[in-house]
Structure formats: structure tokens, C-alpha cells
């Protein structure tokens, strides 16, 4: 066997380099994981903040839409609403689809009839 120490040198150096490289890669990987985690956390924080803000806005909307609040506002503006009587209600039997069809039929029969339905 070759016992000359000079022959070991490149191998030891190569090993040291390899180990150093692996160590650096490991540290770099850990740093990347940390960075990514941080980014995820930041994004999550933004998301949570927006969700929380949304919840508060939803609460405010519900609050404004609550019958008590609406009633209070109407009373403050002296707007008194009441349900219409039977004679004040007009019931339309046709569905909107049928109405459109009827208008189309009308238009076919009489082109001038269109002027009465334009603007629908």
C-alpha cells in the first residue's frame, strides 16, 4: 500500500469540500424554509386581517339591515310605511318570460307596436 501522506491530501480536501458543500446547502435550505415560512405567515396574516375586516363589515351591514335599525332611521326621517291594502295591489299573472313573448308576438303583428314596448 502507498503510505505517502501526499497521496491522502486530495482525498481529505475533497471530503472536506464535500462536507462543507453539504453543510452550506443544508443551511441554505433551512434559510429558504424559514423565508418561505415567513412569507406564508405574512400572506396568512394579510388574509386573516382581510377576513377579520370583512367580518366586521358584514356585522355592520347586518346591523344596518336589522329591522330595528331600519325602523329607527325611517322614523327619524319621518317616513311612515304601511302595508298596501288589497285594492292598492295589482297582481300580474304573466311571468316576465311570457311577457317578452307576448311583446314579440305583438311586434310581429304590428311593427308600430314596438314603440310602446321600447324601453323595457
Amino acid at each position, binding site marked *: 500500500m502507498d503510505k505517502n501522506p501526499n497521496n491522502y491530501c486530495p482525498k481529505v480536501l475533497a471530503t472536506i469540500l464535500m462536507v462543507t458543500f453539504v453543510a452550506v446547502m443544508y443551511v441554505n435550505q433551512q434559510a429558504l*424554509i*424559514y423565508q*418561505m*415560512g*415567513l412569507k*406564508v*405567515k405574512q400572506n396568512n396574516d394579510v388574509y*386573516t386581517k382581510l377576513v*377579520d375586516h370583512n*367580518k*366586521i363589515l*358584514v*356585522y355592520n351591514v*347586518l*346591523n344596518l*339591515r*336589522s*329591522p*330595528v*335599525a331600519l*325602523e329607527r332611521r325611517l322614523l327619524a326621517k319621518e317616513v311612515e310605511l304601511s*302595508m298596501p291594502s*288589497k285594492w292598492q295591489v295589482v297582481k300580474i299573472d304573466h311571468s316576465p318570460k311570457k311577457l317578452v313573448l307576448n311583446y314579440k308576438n305583438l311586434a310581429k303583428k304590428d311593427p308600430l307596436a314596438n314603440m310602446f314596448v321600447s324601453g323595457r
Partner: protein
Amino acid sequence: MYKGTPSRIRKVLYTLIIAFALLCVRLVFVQLGAAKSLSNIASNQYRLVVPLLPKRGVIYDRNLKELAININLISIFAEPFKMKDKGIASQKLASVLGLSRDEIYKKLNQEKGFVWLGRKVSPDTARIVRALNIKGIDFIKEPQRAYPNGVIASHILGFTDMDNNGLEGLELKFDKYLKGVTGYRYTIRDAKQREVPGYEYKEIQPIDGDNLVLTIDSLIQSFAERELENGFKKYHAKGACIIVMDPFTGNVLALSNRPNFDPNNAKAAPPDFRRNRAICDFFEPGSSFKIVPASSLLEEKVVKPSDKFFCENGEYRWYGHTYHDHKPHGWLEFRDVIKYSSNIGTMKAAQRLGKDRLYKYIKKFGFGEKTGIELPGEVNGITTHPNTWSKLSLCSISMGQEVTVTALQLACAMSALANGGNLVKPRIVDMIQDSTGNVIQKFELKKPQRVISEETAREMRTILRSVVDSGTAELAEVEGYFPAGKTGTAQKVEPNGVYSHSKFTASFIGFVPSDNPKFVIVVIMDEPRPFYYGGVVCTPVFKKVAAELMSYYKIWPKEKEVAEKKKKKPVS
């Protein structure tokens, strides 16, 4: 081998061998003996368990409108050991948090590592404190229960404590469904105790609380509360309650009490304001209880509506006790006894029934036991066994004394008359859904029990219609809808056991329309002043709620019948 070595080297060698042997012993001790505890100490230093709070379930009304939701608010805490100048910090925080400087200073000087300065503060307050940038002051998010409708349905919903545990109402009763299960994130922390992102090694997701869907309609609840509030204020009552119920299903559409409270700030209201009087308070109902003996008499066929009773011109002596009518009457048909609410006529009729049969019907109508509604704190009311009755009891009970009931029991009893003779079980929770909307539990309608025949119920409806048409409850008339009902005015019992002459419980229980009942409405006023008759103080509330209900459900008035009625009635 060591023969040639100098003794000094040998000594060093021996010393090293001994030292190495000691280290080995220590190593064995550490590895085998103390490994677990030392490992725990080490892992506790860097491991961190972050609790993940679940969302508390939402409470919806029957139209899936939110009655109770959750929002996240910020709580402010201090770590006093990190703070440098506590005096200046206290000064700065005092004005923002609305506390005195001394109060904050005292908190910061406690020998604690963690002190709450403000829990669940408004977003604006949190923003201002954050801007102060004080070292040692930190923030944490906490879920807060919020009730967007404020006082509406407060007694039904109840409220939660600072840690979101249900304390009253449905929040208490269904706490185990609503609160969900806390999750945990297992991760590591750095030297400054901060969570290191990206190093989570285990995560157990929280399970959000289940949602409740109620039978309540928030709009009906709203106008029922408004009208009750008006009546409560107008008659300076000590307390009041209203129940709107579907007589066929037992679904409670509205239930409200006065005084009330805002569940968003429940601790500001005294405990008395938070009591759900409709189910937790029992009272002597007075004449509104006459529906029970009247139905029993007709059902047992011991009395016909046309049978006549002499009402003693308003004063009747029975076993040494004098009973009075609020107005003197002579001979009255049984239907008019109820119509004019004659105590004397009712007690004379009840004597034909006898105490055992009366008691049987009291129990059949559900008095003396809980209705089983899904609300906490319901009471039974008191109905004593006929064996314990005195000679006066039959008379007293037939006119609504010596018996105590809850408003909800009255609503159920009246429902039996309205729906054709079946006693329904009231319910206020329709279903429980999980957080994704799947139905977990549906509260099915319970099978009603027949109390009286359809014929008797029809007869009773006719009599009760006459009470509103031309009897004691004329103020309850809603033109075109023909409501029916029974008034009640009961003397309250003073602490010395004597009936009061100044304190009354007024009531009106009715349904609308009388020919095809859709809603049963119960209105109770406790100690109204200066007027105290149920026919005066409770009927206007009934009338307005009934009218709004009809409009809301698009039930049109019967104009033909109204015109006919006007023709028949002489112009006064």
C-alpha cells in the same frame, strides 16, 4: 508497555482514565436515569403549542338571517418585565383605554409575566395603542360573539362570557354544539419565544361549532318587540312578555320579554332584565285560564253554550268567601259567561264538572309541567292535586286563581283550541347544521295530544270570537281578520299571602283569524299602571301585532264580511 514511561505521564494517564470512567458513569446515569425529564426540559424550551380556536356556530332565524355571528377583536396585554418606563407607558395608555393612570400602573407593577390591559377592544382603540409603539405591549386576536340585531330576541339567544362560553338562552343550552373543538399547532420557537414559521411538525385542525336554525322570524320578532315595548312603556309595567306561535306546529315565531338587555353588552344589564319571563316566571292567570274549565265543560257535555247561569248581580258568597264580578250580571248564557268573563258564572258552571274532572283537563292542557321547549330555565307552574284542594279551590281555580302557569303554557293551551283540539309541543330550534351546512339534527314536530274534540274546539272558537267582537276584548279587534281570544286580569299575591288590590297581572291570549287560525298571540303585562285590565292594556298590543302578521303573510282582510258586520251593527 508502560515500563519505560516516566511516572508523571503515568499519573496523567491514570487521571484521564479515571476522569473518562466518571464521565462514562455520568453518561449512563443521564442516558438511562434522567433522559426523559431532561429531554422534556429541552423540548419545552424550544417547542411551542399554538391553540387554534374554532369558530362558534352561527345562530340563524327561520329565513337564515344571522342572529348571532362571530367577529375577531384585538385584546391588549403587557409583559411588564420587558417594559422600561412603566409610568410614561401608563400615562399614554390611560387616555386610550379609558382607565386611570394609577389603575394601569398598578397592573404593570404586578409580579407577573403577563397582564391583560384590555380585552376585545374596538379596532380603533387597538390601532391607536399600536401606534404608541410601547415596548412590552402586545396584541392578540380573540373571537367575539356579536348580535347584529342588538336587543332583538335577546332572551332567546342569551349571551356568552369573555371566553365565548354560553351563559344564557340558546347560547347556554346548545353550548356544546355551538362552541366547536379547539385545534392545536405544534411548532418550535426561537430564543425570544417567537414562533419560527415553517417548522410546524404537527397540526390538529379546529372543528368549527355547529349552526342553529331557529323557528323565530326576525321580522315578526322585531314588530312584536316594538309593540310590546310601546305597551310596556305606556302602562309603566314592571314586566311584560309576548309570544307568537303557530298553533298547528308549535313553532315559536317570536318571543320577547320586557325589561330586556343588549346581548352585545349583557353585563351592563341587571340579572332581573336577563330573565326569560315567558318561561321562567309563573303567575296566576286570572280569567284567561277560563278557557280550560269552559272547554272541559263543553267537552264533558255537562254544559251547553245556551245553558243559563245566574250571576248573582256581581256578588256571590260561597263558604264564607265573597266572589265578585268586575261588572254585575244577572242571568247569562254560558257563552256570555265567558264573553263577559263572569267569575260567578264560571265557578257555578265548574261545580257541575267537579274537581277531579277539572284537574284532569288542567293536566291535559299541559299545565303543571314543562312544555319541553329548547330553552333553559323553564318552570312547571303549580297545579295541586284535588286531594289538597279546599272547599274554595274549585271555584278559585276555575277563575284562574290557586293555579300558576307560564305564558308559554297559556300559548300551548290556546293553540289546542285554535288547531282543533290538539295540544302541540312548542319548539324554537328547527335544526342543527354543521359548519358546511349539512343537517346534523332536525328537531321534528312532536306528535300532538288530543285534549278536546274538534267540535268542542270549534264551539270554543266561536265563544272566544264573541269575546273580541262584543265582550271584554273589543280593543283587540282587527278589522277584516276576526281575531278571537280571552282576557285576564289577576290580582297578585302580596308577601303576606293576601290578594293585592293594587298589583295585577294583565293578560290576553288570542288567535287570528278565528275561522282559520294562523297565529296564537299571548301578551302578558306585570303590574301595569294606571290601567290594569287585560282587555285594556294587552289587547292593543295583540291588535297591532296581529294586523302586522296578517300584512306580512299577505292574508287579505275579508272586506265582504266587514261590510256585512257594519250593516248589522247599529250606529251608536
